[in-house]
């Protein structure tokens, strides 16, 4: 059973700062690493994803970095805003499956 280790469990960042969340996976058949964002009372929604053969993807203030040799990937949120306060989940496919295994989540609080 695939495991995805996500850290930190919670994160407090000042407005304008950089938020960094890290994930490590065991084995995967597909180099596809999505990040989901969940606001209170809502279901998770896809925020950004990185697909095979790409080591970094940037969308606005959000960047995913992927280190295949270390089996790690991370989410960077630049110029963090109070509206970014949410729970973030990383995910990875398993070794023999295209189903996703999710990390345990990081609760981000951006304070003014």
């Amino acid at each position: 059973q695939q495991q995805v280790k996500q850290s930190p469990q919670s994160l407090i960042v000042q407005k304008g700062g950089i938020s960094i969340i890290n994930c490590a996976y065991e084995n995967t058949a597909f180099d596809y690493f999505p990040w989901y964002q969940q606001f209170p009372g809502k279901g998770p929604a896809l925020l950004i994803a990185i697909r095979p053969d790409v080591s970094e993807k940037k969308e606005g203030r959000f960047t995913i970095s992927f280190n295949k040799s270390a089996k790690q990937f991370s989410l960077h949120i630049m110029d963090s805003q109070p509206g970014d306060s949410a729970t973030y989940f990383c995910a990875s496919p398993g070794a023999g499956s295209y189903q996703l295994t999710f990390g345990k989540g990081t609760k981000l609080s951006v304070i003014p």
Partner: protein
Amino acid sequence: DVKVTQSSRYLVKRTGEKVFLECVQDMDHENMFWYRQDPGLGLRLIYFSYDVKMKEKGDIPEGYSVSREKKERFSLILESASTNQTSMYLCASSFFETEPYQPQHFGDGTRLSIL
């Protein structure tokens, strides 16, 4: 916009009851999923289905079953509810691909309490 609708936001049931959680999606997605979300444990896959009448066990299927009689509807069944099944249940759907690149679209969840 894709809409995944879960029939109840909150549900309170008693130990031993048979409980049905319903999920409907309106985007003609082939894949549908049931997860449970618990603090500190993240999202854990209970069951998924990639076609009508097809189902596959996820990571924590014990105590649950599912039904998919129509493409748009996926039901999660707790055969005999127990207190350790108190949780937030999330339904999701996606298009089918042989690779996992299609995003999953989630409903807003059903918070189930078993007394």
